[in-house]
């Protein structure tokens, strides 16, 4: 448990370096860290079927495992995996296993927009992980669980009238962490 927690707090580059030494737990962490990203690119940006997305998913991580030694910048693992996923999705579409549109018909710009959103979401998720537990909880309750200030106040034992200010403060911290990460794209969970 302690090892899982410490792996989760490592930057991408450190996880990659550990994977290269054959650390199985680090490999699991890497797959866990990027599995939703890869799956979302396949299903949301390229609209692959579930089966095709699953094939791409397997292929992406198999190649990542094989080619880890060739990676020039460990901190750039995310854009590298993103690019590999794009390429494999397009290959899959070209092979015609998808019944709908051919790759030429695919709105390339639209796919890039979706991938940019996914990149942002991943950065926000990583930035969120750097905040205190209190901040994470209050932001999660308001933005993800749609809880009212009154309900949040009752759950956390704080006056409802102070919740808006607390959320604003936590959003400010999240913004700082997010902008810091955008300046250093490889550092995903430091």
């Amino acid at each position, binding site marked *: 448990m302690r090892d899982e927690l410490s792996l989760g707090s490592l930057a991408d580059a450190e996880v990659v370096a550990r994977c290269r030494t054959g650390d199985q737990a680090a490999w699991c962490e890497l797959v866990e860290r990027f599995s939703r990203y890869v799956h979302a690119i396949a299903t949301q940006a390229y609209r692959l079927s579930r089966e095709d997305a699953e094939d791409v998913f397997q292929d992406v991580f198999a190649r990542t495992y094989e080619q880890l030694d060739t990676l020039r910048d460990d901190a750039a693992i995310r854009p590298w995996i993103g690019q590999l996923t794009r390429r494999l999705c397009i290959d899959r579409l070209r092979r015609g296993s998808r019944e709908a549109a051919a790759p030429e018909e695919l709105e390339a710009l639209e796919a890039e927009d979706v991938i940019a959103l996914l990149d942002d979401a991943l950065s926000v998720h990583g930035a969120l992980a750097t905040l205190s537990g209190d901040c994470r909880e209050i932001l999660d309750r308001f933005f993800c669980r749609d809880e*009212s*200030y009154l309900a949040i106040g009752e759950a956390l034992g704080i006056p409802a*009238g102070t919740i*808006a200010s607390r959320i*604003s403060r*936590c959003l400010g911290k999240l*913004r700082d962490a997010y902008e810091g990460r955008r300046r250093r794209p490889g550092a995903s969970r430091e």
Partner: protein
Amino acid sequence: MAEADPYLDARLGDFVDLLAARTPAPAGGSAAAVVVAMAAGLAEMAGRFSDGHWEGARGAVAQARVLRERAAPLARADAEAYEAALAAMRGQSVQPAGASDRELGEALGRAAQVPLEIAAIGSDVALLAAELAERGNPNLRGDAAAAAVLAEAGARAAANLVEINLSATAGDERVARARSLADAAASAARRSLAPAP
């Protein structure tokens, strides 16, 4: 592409005409949702003009926007839930008593859920707007106070609808919840109207 919404896509004048028409919906719940959404819009504007006055302004804008986006679709949701409850009431006279009572109770319960959400969002908007009135750009204090008062009105109107819809169900905790939300909104609206220090 987002599904068309007959109220949000209507011109304001046409929506008011729909409210005035002799039809069951849109009615009080839809109006309350729109008023709360408008109040959130005003709070959002007050927040945008408060950057440099209050460090929480940008966060307030983000919250106001989320609240506006949550409130607006409830205008249609309330009309649909209310019409379903009316249909259940009409069906009550042609079905065996036990089955129709249960269906009616469920339909009224669903019809109460939407105004309860409106009351909760209205309460949030009033609390956020009160913060903006107190800490935001003083030139926008009147708009922030307008947001708080409108949000309170929407929350109170919605809480009253919850109470009416659940009047047949004794002891439903949603009635007390709705009152608490409206009371919190009222307290916030009073704060927003207090003279500037």
